Structures are given as C-alpha cells and as structure tokens.
C-alpha cells in the first residue's frame, strides 16, 4: 500500500479526488435546491394562512432535531445505501432554515409598499409572487447560505452508511489506513467547497438584487 499524496484517493473508494468533489457538490446542492422548491409553496401557504406558520415551523424543527444518522438508518430500508438516503434528510434539514427565511422575508415588505400593491389592484397571489417574493430575495439568499454550508458538512456523515459521504469517506479511510493526511484532505476540501459555494451565493444575490445595493450609484 503506497502512502500517496494529498489528492491520492485510496483505491477502495473507487474514485478520484475530483470525482469525490463533484459527488460532494451533488449531495450538497440537490438537497438545497429540492429544499427551496419544497419550501416555496410551504412558505406561500404560511404567508397566506398565518396560523399554520408556527406548527409548520415546529414540524421542521422536529425534523432538524432528529440525528441524521437515525434518519439514514431508517431510510436505508427503502432506498438502500444510495445517494437518495443521504439527500432526503439533508433536504428536510434545509426546510428549517428556508421556510422562515422566505416567510419572514415576505413579511418584511414595508406596510406602505404592501398597501400600495393592494390599492393598485394586485390580487393576493400576484402580490406574493410579483412583489413580496422578489423583495424577500436577499432574505432567501441569507437562508440559502446557511442551508448550503450546513449541508456541505453534513454530507460527510454519509460515510457511516456504506461510504455514501463523498469527501467524508476519506475520513473513514484515514482511520482504517492510519493516513491522517486523508482526514486533512477531507476537512480542507469540504471547507474550501463551503467557502466557494458561499461566495457564489453572495455573487448571485448581488446580481439578482441590483436594487438592494447600499452604496448610492451616482
């Protein structure tokens, strides 16, 4: 067994370092995107029927409180040791961040702007979609940043259910083969991916919300 370099992945993982990175990205981003798609209608319903918001938030929090490992083990019965088994819990976890981000963002629209929209003849749904949601975009992105960064690190837990943890799998190999460098590889790679994804989200938010710049452009 050769003691390879930083980017040399043990053969038992049957993957390259780049392969693990792209897998890591997939296991991170699929849940965040699915979470956003699921959170949007839930948030709209919470906005429309304010009374369901606290119970919805409660349920999301309970999901979040369930340890990921427990959920993984539970889901293996249905989906086996697959990507889906990792992605489903991570998707559920994003909801606890994304639903309140969207709802509170929509609620933050000033009373004047909301009254003006109503007075100009926006229907309720049109007001949500054309006025409140766009104005909530900065808050939604704040939620997406938290959801993304936490997903990036949670993915590695997947290593415990048959090497389903992408870069996290390097951690178990680091133990098995006494190669601490692999652990450093996993930790640093995951951190760098987290930072880069976060930077991309900040950039996307800036591009999407030219109206929210602080500095006055003259």
């Amino acid at each position, binding site marked *: 067994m050769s003691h390879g370099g930083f980017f040399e992945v043990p053969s038992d993982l049957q993957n390259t370092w780049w392969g693990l990175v792209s897998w890591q990205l997939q296991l991170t981003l699929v849940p965040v995107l699915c979470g956003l798609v699921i959170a949007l209608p839930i948030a709209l319903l919470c906005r429309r029927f304010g009374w369901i918001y606290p119970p919805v938030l409660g349920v999301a929090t309970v999901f979040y409180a369930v340890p990921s490992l427990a959920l993984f083990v539970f889901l293996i019965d249905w989906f086996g040791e697959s990507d889906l088994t990792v992605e489903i819990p991570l998707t559920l976890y994003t909801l606890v961040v994304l639903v309140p981000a969207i709802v509170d963002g929509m609620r933050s629209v000033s009373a*004047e*702007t909301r009254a*003006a929209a*109503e*007075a100009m*003849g926006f229907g309720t749904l049109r007001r949500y979609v054309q006025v409140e949601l766009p104005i909530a975009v900065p808050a939604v992105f704040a939620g997406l940043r938290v959801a993304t960064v936490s997903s990036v690190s949670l993915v590695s837990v997947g290593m415990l259910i048959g090497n389903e943890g992408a870069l996290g799998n390097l951690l178990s190999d680091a133990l098995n083969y006494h190669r601490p460098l692999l652990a450093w590889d996993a930790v640093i790679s995951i951190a760098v991916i987290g930072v880069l994804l976060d930077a991309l989200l900040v950039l996307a938010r800036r591009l999407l919300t030219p*109206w929210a710049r602080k500095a006055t452009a003259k």
Partner: protein
Amino acid sequence: MIVIDAVTKRYPDGTTAVDRLTLEIPDGSITVLVGLSGCGKTTTLRMINRMVEPTEGRILLDGADVREAPVNALRRSMGYVIQHAGLFPHRTVIDNIATVPRLLGWDKHRARERARELMERVGLDASFAGRYPYQLSGGQQQRVGVARALAADPPVLLMDEPFSAVDPIVRKGLQDELLRIQADLGKTVVFVTHDIDEAIKLGDMVAVLREGGRLAQYAPPARLLSAPADAFVEDFLGVDRGIRHLSFFGTEGLELTAEPIVTEDATAEQVRAATLPEIPYVLVTDAEGRPRGWADALDRATGGDGELLPYGHAFTVGRDSLRAALDAAVLSPTGWAVAVDEQGRAVGVAAQEAVAAAIRSAHTAGVLR
C-alpha cells in the same frame, strides 16, 4: 361623482372609526379630508377603493355601488398615493410607474412609453428612469408615487397623506406641482391630510372630521375660514383665520400708485417730479424696472445717494392674493407694498391703508354675493 352615503365603520373591538358619514365628492376637483389622527379620514379613503369595507351605508361611484364592481378592477381605476410613496424597491422608476398599465395588460413597450410621459409630467428627469427607489430622495420618490398613480389615467385619485413625510420646502414644491397637474388633468381627487394649511391650500372642498369619524364641517376653504361651523372647527383652524382668509381675495381691485417709482439713474429733477406729498420715499428700480429699494425722496432730490431701505418682498398683481399684498405692506419699513408684474417689473406701490380698503371692499362684495 363619489357619494359617501351614511357610511359607518365599526371594528369588532367596538371602536367606531367612521360614524354615519355622508359626503358628496364632486368630479374634477380636489376634496380634502382633514382631521386629527384617529378621526377616520384614512379609513374613509380606504373604503372608497374597498381596502376597508364599511359596516353600514354605501359608497357610490358615478351612481353605482363600489361593491358591484370586481374589487381589483375598481382599484385599478383609482390612482392611489401613500405616505412614504410605498414604491416597489425591486423595480426601477420606470417599471414602478408602469405597474398599473402592466396589470391592465398593456404590453411592456407601451406601458414604458406611457411611464416616460408621466415622468415628464411630474417633473422627473428622464435620466431617473433606470434608477431604483433607494437612489431617490423622499421628494423624488413621492413624484414617482404620483406618476405611478396617474399611469393608467384613472378618473379618480386617492391620496393618503402623500406629502406628510417630506420636509416643508419639498412639500410646498409637491403641493404646487399637484395643483399644476390638477389644472391640466382635472381628476377627481380625494386627499387626506392632518395639516389644515395643506387642506386649505389644495382643497376645492374641505371636510373637517372630528374624533370618532363624525363630520364637523364640509365647505370650500374660504367658507371654512370665514364661517367655521362650531368651536371644534374654529379651534382646528387655529389663529390668523382672518389673515389666511385673505388668500382667497385677488389683488385685482387693489388701488396702486405708480408715481413714486424712479430708475437708479434718475436725475434730481425726475425724483422731484415723482415725489408725492403723502409719501417721503421713492422706490428705486434698476434699468429693467425691477425694484431695488426705497430711497429718501428729499435726499435723492438733492443729489444724495444714501443707502436704499429694503422693501421686503413684492407681490405680483393678478396672481398673488391680498394676503401677500398685506404682508408686503406690513413688512416694508416704509409701510408701502411694492407691486410687480409677471416679469418682476415694479408697476406701482400700495399703502397699508389701500390694502385695508381693498380688504373691506372684498368682504363687502363677498357678503353681497
């Protein structure tokens, strides 16, 4: 015409915001609802476009109950301007203005074309089109708010304290702008304010509401000032009612004296000829005839060129009111008001006594009318 017919708004907690209010709001003029906070003026306004539904009574727009029309169609036929403008922060100026045309299904190009027209009408430079609301001052935002309300050319304009949040100088500019636009467009404007001076300046009719949403008086502003219905209205109007009432009298009937006006380079002979026995001063103008100040007539006539006394401010004949003329007369240290034409050239002077005589005859004419 908008008819508010015995309308009451009671909330579930038992408070009465509006109490059996009846008002006929004429077309093509500005009707102001004025009162202290909690008098139901905003509630009344919001019942017209059904943002609030009345508990009792009905509101008729051109004879039809507003509840008969689909609510969003009704609202799109009424422009709405609100305090702090309430612009959409995520939309550019031009797209804010184009909002209602777009809701009405106009294509983007036509809606923006229309928005550009409106920007010009409210005095916004075309370079603002692509800006976002955060890049505008409060006054500019409110101009956008007015343009947005006018975009679909609605017959009715509802304005809820639109100018309350801007500083006094900007507010005066916006008020003048509204009067100018209204002179062109002749909308049916319902305007809510807590500022009685704003009500008197803008309103063709003014409804004074008292606490609990009851009507205290509904009258043209001049009538309000000359004959307040009761102690509440009188108190609300404040002091200086007589002086403020003069705003409604023109200066056409004011007798002007044209003699004591000389140019800067007038000879001693010319000054002597211009001097009247009853006034020891002459008004000195520049070569174009614009007033510069008062000079001691005797001093000028003997070749002196002593310092000029300030004349305060002039009033424009035909445009300004007797209030401006009186103010000019009492402000001027000589006791004579300076009258100018539209070009700013001095056309005469008026003594305090002449202003007083004009006031007296204006009152007489008012009583006889």
